[in-house]
């Protein structure tokens, strides 16, 4: 029998013409529109698409579950001969955990903080599987070992808050594997993790899944991640299938224009400008040390930023990059060191800074949703800095708002009087950019401005920022955890680790070997669009 035929007899999950609707704004709106999906035993299927594409809803539907406010209107879901749509709640409960398991994006929010890990781990197995407590515990320890958790014998005795994010995500995968299910749904399991942590989790998940011959649906928006994990990829858009192909084939030659555009995102790159030699730096941070209470977060941080340039600060969470921004803006007073702007020392507290000093430094935030007052209209949001700093009023103000909206590529007629809730994430971020530009600043601090956005939208924002810089000559302090973004737009790069600057230099110098040890770890941990990347990386790690 050929492998093709073998697969046909081995279908685990079959979804046919599935339609799902969600209730919002007093109306039922389609989320998933006619998806067919077939999953074989032991196969890993990658589901990718931007937010709102319906991938999480589809993932949950594969368990026979819909969230509140969602309903299945049409189609069939068949899991190993069982019709999941017409199952009773009791029958579904029998399947969940035992034969189908789910790993959520945030393990920290999914574990019950009041119970020890191992008690949560063995609960389903004991309730449904009819095995003894001791045996279940022994199996749990074995799974912890397979997933590479430290001290597998005793780690189960800990509470969720005593583990790091990456460890929790692995513990959650172990829990999903507890009853040796036939199918696991992974919903963005590594999205909230740092790149260096992500690698371990990815390797652990892949190892465990192939060892138990478990089928899996792996949902993510990160192409490079899905390339490592999946045998086959489905690209979703607007609740419909855009393209489906085996991983290697799709990576090599995507056919659908939307898939092509997703692939092209990572190619955006701008020319790095050399540091001006004669000029004094626009912003100079000198030997800053800062702490939250008694916890030191920054020690001896120094960097310089020149006019019209982009300085990228990169590091993992907790490395102190956002704290550096807080020191510059004056929200956090440093214990030592000073911040110089255009040669003059800025007061440590923003309340003691003059209006001009405040005007010269503007911020753009990570989450555009919370950065815009939901009760103000776009013209008020952008108009306020114009009025406040530049004293513009009436027609002159309105004219300037229109100019700014055109600059950020939003139609003034259409968007002027909207509220933030009527905008998409990318549009909101553009409005944030316009608000920063309205003050006519010399320096804009961009704090993870693209990390809450889809890749295509994020690329649009990066291009816009670059374009604005060329027009107006503003400088950016660009804080990010994403190596690709840094490679795309920076002129100079600062790499931070645990509150210290570990590497600092021009973009070419930083991205050219030989690397410093941490720089090397950070860069090599960034997933590549090569299905063999993870293997190569792990092999290299072992060799070291």
């Amino acid at each position: 029998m050929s492998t093709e035929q073998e697969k046909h007899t081995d279908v685990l999950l079959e979804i046919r013409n599935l339609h799902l609707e969600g209730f919002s704004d007093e109306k039922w709106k389609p989320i998933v529109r006619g998806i067919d999906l077939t999953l074989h035993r032991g196969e890993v299927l990658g589901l990718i698409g931007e937010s709102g594409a319906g991938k999480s809803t589809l993932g949950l539907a594969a368990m026979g579950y819909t969230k509140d406010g969602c309903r299945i209107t049409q189609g069939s879901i068949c899991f190993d001969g069982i019709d999941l749509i017409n199952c009773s709640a009791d029958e579904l409960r029998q399947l969940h955990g035992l034969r189908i398991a789910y790993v959520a994006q945030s393990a920290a929010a999914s574990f019950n903080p009041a119970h020890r890990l191992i008690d949560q781990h063995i609960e389903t197995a004991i309730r449904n599987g009819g095995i003894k407590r001791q045996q279940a515990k022994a199996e749990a320890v074995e799974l912890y070992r397979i997933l590479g958790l430290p001290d597998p014998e005793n780690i189960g005795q800990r509470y969720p808050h005593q583990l790091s994010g990456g460890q929790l995500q692995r513990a959650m995968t172990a829990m999903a594997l507890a009853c040796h299910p036939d199918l696991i749904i992974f919903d963005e399991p590594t999205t909230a993790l740092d790149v260096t942590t992500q690698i371990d989790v990815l390797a652990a998940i892949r190892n465990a899944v192939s060892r138990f011959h478990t089928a899996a649906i792996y949902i993510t928006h990160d192409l490079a991640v899905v390339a490592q994990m999946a045998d086959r990829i489905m690209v979703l858009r607007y609740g419909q299938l855009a393209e489906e192909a085996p991983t290697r084939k799709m990576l090599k030659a995507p056919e659908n224009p939307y898939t092509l555009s997703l692939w092209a995102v990572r190619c955006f790159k701008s020319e790095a400008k050399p540091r001006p030699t004669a000029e004094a730096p626009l912003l100079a941070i000198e030997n800053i040390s800062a702490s939250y209470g008694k916890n030191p977060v920054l020690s001896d941080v120094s960097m310089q930023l020149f006019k019209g340039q982009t300085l990228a600060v990169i590091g993992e969470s907790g490395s102190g990059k956002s704290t550096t921004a807080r020191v510059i803006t004056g929200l956090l007073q440093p214990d030592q060191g000073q911040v110089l702007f255009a040669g003059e020392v800025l007061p440590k507290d923003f309340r003691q800074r003059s209006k001009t000093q405040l005007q010269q430094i503007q911020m753009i935030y990570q989450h555009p949703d919370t950065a815009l007052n939901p009760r103000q209209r776009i013209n008020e949001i952008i108009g306020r800095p114009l009025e406040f700093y530049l004293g513009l009023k009436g027609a002159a103000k309105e004219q300037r708002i229109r100019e700014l909206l055109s600059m950020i590529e939003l139609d003034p007629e259409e968007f002027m009087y909207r509220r933030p809730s009527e905008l998409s994430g990318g549009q909101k971020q553009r409005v944030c950019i316009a608000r920063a530009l309205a003050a006519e600043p010399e320096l804009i601090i961009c704090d993870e401005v693209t990390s809450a956005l889809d890749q295509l939208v994020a690329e649009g924002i990066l291009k816009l920022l670059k374009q604005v810089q060329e027009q107006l000559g503003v400088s950016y302090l660009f804080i990010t955890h994403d190596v690709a973004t840094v490679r795309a737009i920076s002129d100079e790069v600062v790499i931070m680790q645990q509150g210290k600057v570990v590497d600092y230099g021009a973009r070419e110098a930083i991205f050219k070997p030989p690397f410093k040890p941490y720089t090397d770890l950070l860069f090599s941990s960034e997933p590549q669009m090569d299905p063999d990347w993870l293997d190569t990386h792990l092999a290299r790690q072992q060799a070291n």
Partner: protein
Amino acid sequence: MKKCLRCLCQAPLSAKIGILLIISYSFVAIFAPWLAPYGETEVVGDGYAAWSPEFWLGTDNLGRDVLSRLIYGARNTISIAFVTTILAFVVGGLAGLMAAIKGGWIDQGLSRVVDILMAIPQLIFALLILSVVGTNAVSLILVIALLDATRVFRLSRAVAMNVVVQDFVEAARLRGEGLVWLIWREVLPNTLPPLVAEFGLRFCFVFLFISALSFLGLGIQPPTADWGSMVRENAVMISFGDFTPLLPAMAVALLTIGVNFVVDWVLHKTSGLKG
């Protein structure tokens, strides 16, 4: 405007009843002198007269027309309660927002003062102060407003705490905006829905509290008509099987129910609860 009307039409029956009640009470309160058949304090007949075409709801202990006093009572009780509630919201609400925005020792200081005030039972505190400063409309309003402001402070501070940590408030601070802008334009609009709902409830509590104080003789002073004191003055009639003294109590109850219906609806609409 059109949108408001459409919204009203779609309101559930309970909310419509509530709105109707509030409107009719306000109407009665505003046009009391024209609606009442007799004067507020006018002695028009014998004491404790029965219901008759001349005195629809009979007369009270001194021979004043009960219907007229009920109508004037609406005016006195509701207006004092309304002014008190507004005062409580201005003081408590602003202090709460300021505490949330400023933080630090301002927040600590205000919160501890409020804790102390809240630790003393409301009625006892009011009785104490009123018996010291004497009972008149102004001191009544000030005392009750102060007591209720503590509750409003707690709520507005708690709601505002969730707003001030958001990035748009930080952006406004970094822009160099003053306290007035921060309160008025950034924080207040985002805390409004729960505060509006609380306004309705607080109004009911103030209203009941005034009636209770009047019943105890420390609220609105005779001969001014007031529902609470009307119950007390004529309570003796109940023992003769006449339920006239309960009418002012029912007037209080009905308005409370009406306001609650409307508040429920507003809360439901603004909190986005469905189903």
